[in-house]
């Protein structure tokens, strides 16, 4: 024994050492080994054989601290995870020194503390604690205890299952808002992820009447620590959860957990880069390179799931649960059955246990092949149904789509054929550390590339918005990229990225020795480097490329494609929104079910069946996005005006979409109203009697609608100026509106639309997604013509017309195409870039799930707009007084 000083020596434990003995004998030998080499100046609990080391404690705690810093700096997950990690770190530091008999109860307490910590502070503001959060946390605990209690009712098992189904139906009714609940909506995803599958596993185990689990084991299983911040949670098996608890040396378990957490972080970083840089919409696929990109990105987004699952199991390792991996090199699957075994292993095990094996045993009297085919196909049907069941509990809606069903059925057929082949011809298996011959390894690598390609195709099909849309992208098979990149080069690169690791994996290697010190050193050094690079003061020194990449990784919000789609309400009609996109799922997961529909679903809107597609209903009012909206007699969200301006009045008409309309802010808070107020405050010095600012903006408007409303309505109010507001990402909306207008015939009021339809020869009755893709190549021409038409129309009436760039609070890129076309068309181009400088954009949103600017945002816009107008009096002579400094106001 080390006597008076703590010591940490090199531990070289071969993996075969862990494998060549039973868990019991291993633990005994390892304990003796560690007891000799890791020791504290005080003696351990005499009833336990485990050793402790202050150095090992520091090593693991240090790595954990680095991990938390990395998650925080890169914003890899929500604040809730950071909070849970802090609870875990503090808890682990104590847990390490506890006698083993106290560790599980302590873990349970820590798990409940994490639930309370997360629910008490759900928002981005760390200082805003919510007492209601504690009530939600208490409800989770109470409902959970009732559900667990039902499994243990002293009645026949069948009746208990029936009681559980009854309780589930009651909760489902509440989930669908048929029954009012005293808890908030935030409770549902957490409660669901804790109980929707684990109750099934738990009841299955209880039926087998195995050794009675302790209360701590049961509570730990259902309320396990990291669950509260991960609604998508691996289906941990109850038997494995119990049997893996401290079944190996604890320092080995802890260090494995830390390694897996860092591995999870790497997955999440890769996911962020893919999400921000490589996601491409079907409508934007025009050549072979983009086609490849479109096929590959959806599968790569799965990195988010594997990353979070690694972090989850890593955290559980810290508290002694030596659980197996949830994913194992799934990009390197060499067959479809191999893919099923490597991706989401816990799910596979769950389905095998609950569905596949029972069905196979039932069917095997009809022969092995019949049993195999039937059980495999039914296991995939169960997977499809259970995925929908999962989404119901997490989102409150069903997500049945054709894509989803076809995806699972195609995968089922592929796996079944593969399994039949393996049953008849066998499969090459190797013992750990074994290697294939070069010939065998090359064949395996080739198969791996093939499986990767097929899975990518299948995944892109799964995530496409419609079946015709997915097929339509293959029109570009023969279209070459205008740049230097050749598809063959990209294909070779992809084959190499998948094939070379697959080859290395197949060739195998020597059984590497596990070394605690080496593992700590490698994880610690890599973690430290990652944390340092994550600091802006460091990565900014590495040039623009690194800086931009880090900005992508550090951006925990929607990419430009999703933002644009979200804003135009594209996702409102998709039942499976978020199923393939965790970022969208977060956004939609927080949104209340009622009172946040799009403007087109509100009574404020009347549809015209022509262009513009909608008008605001005159003299109407309604609640919209949390505030009361009033519409004047002219169909404007504004105060009342005479149709013609009074003498001496300077009149400005504002056109745009939801940001200008003022979605989510009160009538008196819109920047249009604030600007008008501001202009009139200085009217006495301006030479004008009065300024009118008329708000013709309507949510969901595109440039085509704006052209139509200017022609049909705005000009009849005799404005002196028209201000046209635009932000980035509105072009897809324009194309979508043009498609709708072509299909209902209203777009033919414009000769330029007729020309494009005639020239392109497009079939206007085809699927809207397909038509959108085809019209995409005309977007620049369409926008140019629309802008020119607006300018010509305005100038013909003697009205000055300005195009003003108004960024969204979270906008990262400015609309260069739109800006250039606006200038070419003859607009006065003004720019409100920097309007939100000095503010955290998240504090300027109407709600986390709604990216429109709030009242503060509108105030900033009004101030900036006044300043910009004042600076450009040469272009727009409004006779404005010099803007006083902001602090004076």
């Amino acid at each position: 024994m080390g006597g008076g000083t703590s010591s940490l020596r090199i531990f070289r434990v071969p993996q075969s050492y862990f494998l060549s003995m039973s868990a019991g004998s291993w633990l005994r030998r390892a304990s003796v080994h560690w007891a000799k080499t890791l020791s504290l100046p005080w003696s351990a609990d005499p009833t336990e054989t485990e050793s402790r080391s202050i150095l090992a404690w520091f090593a693991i705690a240090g790595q954990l601290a680095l991990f938390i810093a990395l998650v925080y700096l890169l914003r890899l997950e929500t604040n809730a995870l950071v909070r849970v990690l802090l609870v875990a770190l503090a808890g682990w530091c104590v847990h390490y020194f506890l006698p083993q008999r106290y560790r599980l109860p302590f873990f349970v307490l820590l798990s409940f503390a994490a639930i309370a910590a997360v629910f008490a502070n759900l928002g981005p503001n760390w200082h805003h604690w919510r007492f209601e959060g504690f009530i939600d946390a208490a409800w989770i605990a109470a409902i959970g205890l009732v559900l667990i209690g039902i499994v243990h009712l002293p009645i026949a098992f069948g009746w208990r299952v029936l009681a559980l189904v009854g309780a589930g139906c009651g909760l489902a009714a509440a989930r669908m808002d048929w029954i009012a609940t005293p808890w908030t909506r935030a409770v549902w995803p957490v409660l669901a992820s804790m109980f929707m599958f684990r109750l099934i596993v738990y009841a299955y185990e209880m039926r087998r009447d195995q050794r009675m689990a302790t209360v701590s084991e049961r509570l730990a299983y259902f309320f396990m620590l990291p669950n509260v911040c991960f609604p998508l949670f691996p289906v941990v098996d109850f038997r494995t959860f119990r049997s893996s608890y401290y079944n190996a040396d604890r320092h080995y378990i802890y260090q494995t957990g830390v390694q897996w957490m860092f591995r999870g972080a790497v997955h999440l970083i890769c996911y962020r880069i893919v999400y921000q840089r490589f996601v491409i919409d079907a409508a934007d696929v025009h050549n072979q390179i983009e086609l490849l990109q479109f096929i590959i990105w959806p599968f790569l987004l799965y990195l988010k799931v594997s990353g979070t699952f690694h972090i989850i199991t890593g955290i559980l390792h810290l508290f002694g649960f030596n659980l197996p991996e949830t994913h194992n090199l799934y990009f390197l699957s060499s067959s479809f059955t191999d893919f099923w075994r490597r991706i989401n292993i816990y799910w596979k095990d769950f389905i095998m246990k609950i569905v596949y094996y029972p069905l196979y045993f039932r069917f095997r009297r009809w022969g092995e092949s019949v049993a195999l085919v039937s059980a495999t196909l039914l296991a995939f049907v169960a997977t499809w149904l259970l995925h929908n069941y999962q989404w119901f509990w997490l989102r409150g809606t069903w997500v049945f789509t054709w894509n989803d069903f076809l995806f699972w059925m195609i995968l089922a057929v592929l796996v079944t054929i593969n399994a039949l082949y393996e049953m008849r011809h066998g499969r090459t298996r190797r013992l750990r550390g074994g290697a294939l011959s070069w010939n065998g390894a090359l064949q395996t690598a080739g198969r791996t590339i093939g499986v990767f390609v097929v899975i990518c195709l299948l995944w892109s099909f799964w995530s496409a918005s419609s079946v015709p849309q997915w097929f339509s992208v293959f029109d570009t098979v023969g279209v070459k990229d205008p740049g230097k990149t050749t598809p063959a080069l990209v294909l070779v690169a992809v084959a190499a990225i998948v094939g070379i690791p697959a080859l290395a994996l197949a060739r195998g290697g020597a059984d590497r020795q596990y070394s605690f010190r080496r593992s700590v050193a490698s994880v610690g050094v890599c973690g430290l480097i990652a944390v340092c690079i994550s600091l802006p003061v460091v990565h900014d020194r590495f040039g623009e490329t690194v800086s931009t990449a880090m900005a992508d990784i550090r951006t925990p919000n929607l990419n430009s494609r999703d933002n644009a789609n979200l804003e135009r309400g594209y996702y409102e009609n998709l039942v499976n929104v978020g199923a393939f996109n965790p970022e969208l799922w977060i956004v939609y997961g927080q949104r209340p079910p009622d009172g946040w529909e799009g403007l087109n679903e509100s009574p404020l809107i009347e549809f015209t069946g022509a262009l513009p597609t909608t008008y605001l209903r005159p003299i109407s009012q309604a609640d919209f996005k949390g505030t009361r909206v009033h519409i004047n007699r002219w169909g404007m969200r504004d105060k009342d005006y005479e149709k013609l301006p009074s003498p001496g009045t300077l009149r400005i008409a504002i056109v745009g979409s939801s940001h200008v309309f003022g979605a989510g802010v009160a009538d008196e808070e819109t920047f249009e109203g604030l600007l008008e107020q501001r202009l009139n405050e200085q009217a006495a010095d301006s030479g004008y009697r009065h300024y009118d600012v008329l708000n013709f903006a309507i949510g969901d408007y595109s440039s085509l609608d704006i052209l139509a409303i200017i022609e049909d309505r705005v000009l009849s109010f005799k404005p002196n100026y028209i201000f046209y507001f635009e932000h980035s990402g509105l072009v897809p909306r324009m194309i979508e509106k043009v498609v709708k207008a072509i299909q209902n015939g209203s777009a033919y009021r414009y000769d330029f639309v007729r020309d494009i339809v005639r020239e392109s020869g497009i079939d206007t009755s085809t699927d809207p997604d397909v038509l959108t893709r085809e019209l995409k190549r005309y977007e620049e021409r369409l926008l140019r013509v629309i802008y020119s038409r607006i300018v010509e129309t305005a100038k013909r009436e003697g009205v000055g017309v300005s195009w003003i760039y108004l960024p969204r609070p979270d906008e990262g890129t400015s609309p260069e195409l739109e800006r250039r076309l606006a200038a070419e068309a003859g607009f006065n181009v003004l720019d409100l870039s920097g309007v939100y400088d000095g503010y955290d954009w998240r504090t300027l949103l109407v709600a986390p799930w709604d990216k429109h600017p709030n009242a503060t945002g509108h105030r900033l816009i009004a101030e900036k707009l006044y300043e910009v107008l004042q600076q450009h009096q040469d272009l727009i002579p409004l006779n404005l007084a010099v803007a006083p400094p902001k602090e004076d106001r």
Partner: protein
Amino acid sequence: MNSIQIRTMARDFILNEFLPGERPENLTDSTELITDGILDSLATLKLVAYLEKSCGIEIAPDELVPENLNSIAQIANFVQSKQAST
């Protein structure tokens, strides 16, 4: 059938069916069959059919768990306990 006979029988079956060409001494009584991917679902079902036929036992689906089948030693113990119970 004693434990040694069951182990020999199980080892031979696994080597012939799933690990052809593998040196027998590499497959020890404690080699982790499920954890190391040797016994996947298909192999498990084949092994179960073989054990049922050779040892005259009946195995239930909920007995296909690692603690019964993860190593040759565990297989032998499991088969012996089944034989004893029948």
